[in-house]
C-alpha cells in the first residue's frame, strides 16, 4: 500500500508564546521546534504499522524551507522510506493543501495521513482541504484503524464518544490520540535516515485566501482568591454571587 504522511513543524509544547513587530509576527527567538505531535506520534506511526502489516511504502511530505529538514530527517529516522519537501513558506492551510494535493495527484496514494491539527495554530483544516481538492473521502479525528478485507474500519472521535466507519482506499485521514503508540528513533534509524531520499519539489502557484493580521496574548490573570478548605459555603457563595458561575 502506498502511503503518504503530511508532517508539520511546531514550537514545542512548553515554548513561551510571544509576538514581535507590534503583534504582527510570532517571535521565534529561543523557541525549539518539533514535529507536530499528532503527525509524529499517531499519523506517521500508524502508517508505518500498516506498511508492516500489508507491505508498501511510507512517504512523508512537508511544506516549508530547507531549515525544516531536521524535522523531515526525524520522520525518516522513525522509519519513513522517503521524503518530499515542497519549497514554500507554509503561510496558510489552503496553500499547504494545494501543494500536497498536487503531489498526491501524480503519485496516487492509497491513504494520506495528516494530524488532526497543528498544536500551534490549531487550524484543523489541511486534511479536509486535501480531500476536497482530490475529491476523496475524509475521516477526521481517527483514533483507531484496522484492516478488514480490502476495506478499512476507522474509529473516529465525536463529542462524548466515537463512531466506527468503513471506508475503501483512496481516502484522507486525520489522526488524533490513540491511533498508534509513539516510537522513539533508534541509532540504526538515525544513521539510515541520512541516506534516505529527500526530494525537494518546486511549489506550484497557490493562493492562501486567509491572512493573519495581528496576534496578542491574554492579559495576565489577577491573583487567585484563596478560600479556607473548611469553609466550602464561602466558595459556593463566591461562585454564586461574585463569579455568577453557579
Amino acid at each position, binding site marked *: 500500500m502506498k502511503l503518504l504522511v503530511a508532517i508539520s513543524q511546531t514550537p514545542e509544547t512548553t515554548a513561551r508564546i510571544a509576538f514581535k513587530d507590534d503583534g504582527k509576527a510570532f517571535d521565534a527567538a529561543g523557541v525549539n521546534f518539533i514535529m507536530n505531535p499528532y503527525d509524529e506520534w499517531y499519523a506517521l506511526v500508524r502508517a508505518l504499522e500498516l506498511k508492516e502489516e500489508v507491505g508498501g511504502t511510507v512517504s512523508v511530505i512537508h511544506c516549508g524551507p530547507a531549515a525544516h529538514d531536521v524535522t523531515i530527517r526525524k520522520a525518516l529516522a522513525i522509519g519513513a522510506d522517503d521524503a518530499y519537501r515542497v519549497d514554500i513558506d507554509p503561510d496558510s492551510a489552503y496553500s499547504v493543501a494545494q501543494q500536497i494535493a498536487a503531489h498526491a495527484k501524480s503519485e496516487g496514494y492509497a491513504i494520506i495521513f495528516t494530524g488532526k491539527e497543528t498544536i500551534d495554530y490549531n487550524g484543523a483544516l489541511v486534511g479536509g482541504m486535501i480531500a476536497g481538492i482530490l475529491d476523496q*473521502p475524509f475521516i477526521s479525528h481517527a483514533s483507531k484503524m484496522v484492516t478488514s478485507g480490502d476495506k478499512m474500519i476507522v474509529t473516529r472521535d465525536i463529542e*462524548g464518544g466515537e463512531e466506527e466507519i468503513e471506508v475503501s482506499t483512496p481516502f484522507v485521514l486525520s489522526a488524533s490520540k490513540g491511533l498508534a503508540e509513539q516510537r522513539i528513533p533508534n541509532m540504526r534509524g538515525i544513521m539510515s535516515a541520512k541516506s534516505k531520499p529527500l526530494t525537494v519539489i518546486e511549489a506550484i502557484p497557490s493562493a492562501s485566501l486567509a491572512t493573519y493580521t495581528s496576534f496578542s496574548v491574554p492579559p495576565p490573570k489577577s491573583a*487567585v482568591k484563596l478560600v479556607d478548605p473548611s469553609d466550602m459555603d464561602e466558595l459556593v457563595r463566591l461562585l454564586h454571587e461574585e*463569579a455568577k458561575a453557579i
Partner: protein
Amino acid sequence: MILVYAETQDGKVKKSALESVYFGSKMAALNGTSCLALMLGKADDAGRLGAYGAGEVLQVEDANLISFDALTYSKVVAKVAADKNAKVVILPDSSNGKSMLGIIGVLLKAGVVSGVNKLPEAMSDHLVVDRALFSGKAFAKCRIDSEVAVISLSGNTIKPVSEGADVAVSSISVEVPVPSTKVLATNRSVGTVPLPEAEVVVSAGRGLKDPSNWGIIEDLADVLGATTACSRPVADSGWRPHHEHVGQTGIAIRPNLYIAIGISGAIQHLAGVNSSKVIVVINKDPEAPFFKAADYGVVGDLFEVVPKLTEAIKKLKSA
C-alpha cells in the same frame, strides 16, 4: 446572505445549532442581510431556529444523509450555499463541523477560518474574525481575502437567546451524492452533555490516587449538572475514557466554570482549559502551578474538600 449549517442529533437541533444561528443572525444584522439555517436530516424542533434568528429554515432529507459522511455533507452544504449566493457560511466547531470546513472551503473557493470566538465588529468586503491559537495561549485576527468566507464557531462563544418567533421549515431537494463511507456504529455516553458543549466541567487528575475514588468527582458533577473530564495521565492509565482527556493533546474546552481537582496544572493541561471563564483549583500543594491560572483556589486535601463542596452546593440548590 449568511448560511448556517445547523447540526442535528437524534432528530433534535443541537445546542451548537442554536449558537451558530444566533451568531449568524447577529452577523447578518451588521449589514442588513438575513440568516438562513440549513439542516441535513430532520429535527422536530427545527422551527425554533427561527426564534434564535434564522429568517428561513431549510431542510434536506435524503437516504444518503442518514449517517454522516464528510464529503457528501460538504457537497450538499456547498451546493445550497452557492445556489443561495451565501457570502458567509457558518459551521459549528464540532468534530463533524471540523471535518466539513476545509472541504466546503475548497468547493466554494473560499477563505476558511476555524474556531472563531467573537462576533466581528463589522461586515466589510473582507471579513475580519477573531480566533484563539496555541490552545488558548494567544489570540489572533484573521482576514478573509475571498468573496465568500467559511468559518466555524467555537462552542460557548455566544449565549443564544430566543428573541423572535418560530418559522416554518421548508424542505428543498438537492442532488445528494452517494457517500463513499459507511457508519457501522455510533457509541455515545448517554445522559451527559458532551465535554465541548458543557457549561460546567469537573475535572480530576492523578491526585485522586486510584480510579475507585472517582465517585466523589461524580457526586460533585451530579449536583452541578456538570460533565467530567480528566488530565492526560488519568486517561492514559485507563482510569477514564480518553474522550474525557482535556489539554493540548486532548480536547480544548471553554466552559463557564472549570473545577480542577488534584491536577498540578502542567502547561500542556492548561493549554486546553485556560479559556474557561472561571477556574477553581483544589490541590493540597500550595505551590501547584495551577493556582497561577485559577480565579479561586482551595489549598487542602481533596478527599476532605470535595465532599464538603458537594454538600455546600446541595445546600445552595435547595435554598
